């Protein structure tokens, strides 16, 4: 039985019993032991006295050596039941007379010479006394008592003690069983209450307080706690109810939201449809707008030249105005289209490796007229080891074009500086382009909106300097597209500095198509030597284009063969084995893509470089199918001239040293794409 797990009731009783028991036992045992010890002492004194008397009475008998008299004297001890042995010794230690109790065994005792006084030997009390006659020793008396008085007294005491303990224990039990209720009663009541509370989960029950002691305070505390719990319980119930109501409300809300979501989804679909319609409309419009613009710009250029040759200088200026207005209109259309493409997220990257220095050289030479227009000079600083970068060359070029043409536009009689450098930041290599001018500059306020579309530094600027206000916005987006960044510092009236960082190896998350490095299909392969005159085959269903191209290219010294349809073009290509083919896309029956496919599929013709000349803005498709270059109408004739001249030069040298030339051309990755961006950039810079 584990004493610790007893009930409080039992523990209290046990404690009371033990306490009183210990008190009773200790006090009575103390008393009894004291009594027994003092009794023993008095017993020994008694025995000494006894011995003195016997000694006195037997002294004379000893003195007169009367053994029988001494024996008689000793036998008087029969009355003393406790004395079991009495011996008289003569002075020389011999037994003179002795008496022993009839019922007692006779212990053998020898006289110890030094033994005097009394001693407790085992359960016996022994006394040695000198027997004297008138102060003179005549012998020694030995008395031995079995202390039966003491023993019987001890026995009696034990009995009394036991019964006393039993009786007092009984009364202590009686009293404690009554008194323990004082303490255990309230505790048991508290326990009952607690059990009831936990069983019924009802917090309205209260324990009754009996007394003002600690348990009373405990009960008070318990009641307070119950009250608290009850209060919280009620609050919890309320909160729960409220929660239910709220949940219901929320569910209703969710249903409403779902409906709304559905409506929104519908609205979104509608908006997307509308957007698609808008995109389609824009695409159509651009095509429809570009075709007449093509004619306007082309013929006005021709007219201008011819008029110039005829010496009618006054008309030249008018024609130049027509030309300028047309180009401006074209640039507007292009910018709007580009921006809408970017906004629609359809603007992809054509990543390729290209030589930076070469790209810059080409661009600067193209830009030269625009720069010198305001009597500006350009300084180009290129770092030595620029080498090759991998990016979308068209977009890089367009960014630089925009910035440089802006710089020249807002600078008069000043200097435009282009610094190109390499740097390493955050473990990546960057190409840094820094375009500085000494122009009017930009105020801090203007700077805030600088890269927003349709925003020029000032509304008045548009009037004074012209421009669509889209150039910087597009440049900004292109830079972001290539994970680069653009920033501007400026001081009004002192000029501006634009800095563009583009990773030297752009990694595109949005790549429109696989990179097309069609160097293999480059003019170098066109080593056929059928005609001594370089023939250019123009395939276009638009007679205006055919006419303009023919006149332009003939003037450059090419033999031009024109085809009005794809079928005819393919046939003619086999006949004349041209140096270059220019190919339109949108044609009845057999469109440009189909023609390109067939050209490249034919082993005889596949080596002929094809320059796409079209209003369809789908460079990647062209490169995919094997086109060498991609120009968008209206064609920049200078650009076209450069490209075709390149192929002519390549072919003539290839005839003699094809092996050597081929790789060098292949190394020029920009060649086939150059015109892609010229369509938009050049007109803008001309403004």
């Amino acid at each position: 039985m584990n004493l610790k797990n007893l009930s409080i009731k039992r523990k209290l009783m046990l404690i009371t019993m033990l306490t009183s028991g210990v008190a009773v036992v200790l006090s009575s045992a103390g008393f009894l032991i004291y009594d027994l010890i003092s009794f023993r002492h008095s017993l020994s004194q008694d025995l000494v006295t006894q011995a003195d008397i016997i000694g006195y009475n037997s002294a004379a008998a000893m003195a007169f050596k009367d053994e029988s008299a001494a024996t008689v004297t000793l036998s008087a001890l029969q009355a003393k039941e406790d004395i079991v042995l009495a011996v008289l010794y003569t002075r020389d230690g011999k037994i003179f007379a002795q008496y022993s109790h009839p019922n007692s065994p006779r212990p053998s005792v020898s006289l110890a010479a030094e033994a005097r006084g009394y001693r407790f030997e085992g359960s016996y009390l022994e006394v040695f006394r000198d027997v004297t006659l008138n102060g003179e020793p005549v012998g020694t008396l030995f008395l031995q008592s079995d202390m039966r008085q003491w023993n019987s007294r001890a026995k009696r005491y034990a009995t009394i003690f036991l019964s006393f303990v039993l009786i007092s224990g009984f009364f202590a039990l009686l009293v404690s069983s009554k008194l323990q209720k004082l303490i255990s009663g309230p505790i048991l009541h508290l326990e009952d209450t607690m059990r009831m509370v936990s069983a019924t989960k009802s917090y309205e029950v209260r324990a009754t307080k009996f007394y003002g002691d600690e348990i009373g305070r405990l009960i008070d505390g318990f009641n307070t706690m119950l009250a608290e719990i009850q209060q919280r319980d009620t609050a919890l119930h309320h909160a729960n109810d409220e929660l239910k109501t709220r949940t219901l409300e929320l569910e209703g809300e969710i249903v409403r939201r779902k409906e709304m979501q559905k409506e929104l989804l519908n609205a979104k679909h509608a908006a997307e449809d509308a957007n698609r319609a808008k995109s389609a409309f824009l695409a159509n419009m651009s095509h429809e707008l570009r075709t007449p613009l093509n004619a306007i710009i082309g013929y006005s250029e021709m007219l201008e030249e011819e008029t110039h040759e005829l010496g009618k200088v006054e008309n030249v200026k008018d024609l130049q105005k027509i030309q300028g207005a047309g180009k401006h209109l074209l640039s507007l259309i292009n910018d709007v289209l580009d921006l809408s493409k970017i906004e629609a997220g359809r603007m992809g990257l054509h990543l390729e490796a290209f030589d930076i220095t070469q790209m810059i050289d080409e661009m600067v030479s193209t830009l030269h007229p625009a720069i010198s227009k305001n009597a500006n000079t350009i300084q180009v600083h290129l770092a030595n080891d620029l080498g090759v970068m991998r990016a979308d060359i068209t977009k890089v070029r367009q960014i630089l074009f925009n910035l440089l043409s802006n710089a020249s536009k807002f600078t008069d009689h000043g200097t435009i500086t282009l610094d190109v450098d390499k740097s390493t930041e955050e473990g990546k290599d960057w190409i840094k382009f820094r375009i500085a001018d000494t122009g009017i500059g930009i105020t801090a306020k203007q700077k805030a909106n600088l890269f927003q579309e349709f925003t020029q530094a000032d509304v008045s600027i548009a009037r004074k300097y012209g421009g669509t206000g889209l150039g910087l916005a597009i440049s900004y987006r292109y830079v972001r597209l290539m994970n680069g960044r653009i920033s501007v510092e400026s001081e009004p009236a002192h000029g501006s500095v634009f800095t563009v960082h583009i990773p030297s190896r752009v990694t595109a998350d949005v790549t429109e198509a696989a990179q097309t490095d069609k160097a293999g299909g480059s003019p170098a392969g066109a080593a056929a030597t059928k005609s001594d005159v370089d023939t250019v085959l123009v395939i276009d269903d638009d007679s205006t284009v055919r006419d303009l191209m023919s006149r332009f290219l003939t003037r450059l010294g090419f033999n031009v063969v024109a085809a009005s349809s794809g079928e005819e073009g393919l046939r003619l290509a086999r006949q004349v084995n041209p140096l270059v083919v220019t190919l339109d896309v949108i044609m009845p029956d057999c469109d440009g893509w189909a023609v390109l496919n067939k050209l490249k599929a034919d082993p005889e013709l596949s080596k002929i470089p094809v320059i796409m000349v079209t209003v369809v803005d789908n460079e990647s498709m062209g490169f995919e199918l094997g086109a060498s270059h991609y120009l968008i109408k209206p064609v920049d004739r200078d650009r076209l001239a450069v490209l075709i001249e390149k192929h002519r030069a390549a072919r003539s040298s290839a005839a003699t040293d094809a092996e050597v030339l081929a790789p060098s051309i292949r190394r020029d990755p920009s060649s086939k794409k150059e015109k892609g961006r010229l369509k938009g950039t050049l007109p803008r810079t001309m403004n």
Partner: protein
Amino acid sequence: MKKVGILIVIISLLSTMALRSHAEGLESSDSSEYLIKAGFIYNFAKLVEWPTTAFAQADSPIVIGILGDDPFGATLDRIVADKKINGRGFAVKRLKWTKELKDLRDCNILFVSSSEKEHMDGVVDAIKWLPILTIGDVPGFARRGGIMNFTLEDNKIRFEVNVEAAKHADLTISSRLLTLARIVQQVAADGRKPE
């Protein structure tokens, strides 16, 4: 041969020792009787009270007179030498029976030797009424008016007390002594032979 010689010597030695011890035993038994009697006399002195008139001074010695042949030799003198009872020492005198009774009357204890059987009555008469403890070594002495007398019972020395005579002599004999003694009555008050 040699061994036999040694054996003879040892045997002769042992036998001479035995003879000697026997002779001593006889001698000592004889003298031990008077040794005991001398001790008794000394012990009697302890258990008997004399009236104060018996002594001249508080520290006057107890005078023991030996009448007739002295059987003690030096034993009695040795026993009582340097002993004191109640501040009194002892003095031992040896007396002869004469008509001069002054010597007798100076004693406190008078031992009547067995050689004085003839003068037994005379001695009693001579010191009648005087506080003198008479101790006889003569059979019947107490009955004839002596106060105490040595007897032999079962080879043990005992003594008789004539309580009447003691009373006459104004001597108080302790009850402790009386319990050990045989009390005898005086046969003839005048010491006359009851013939």
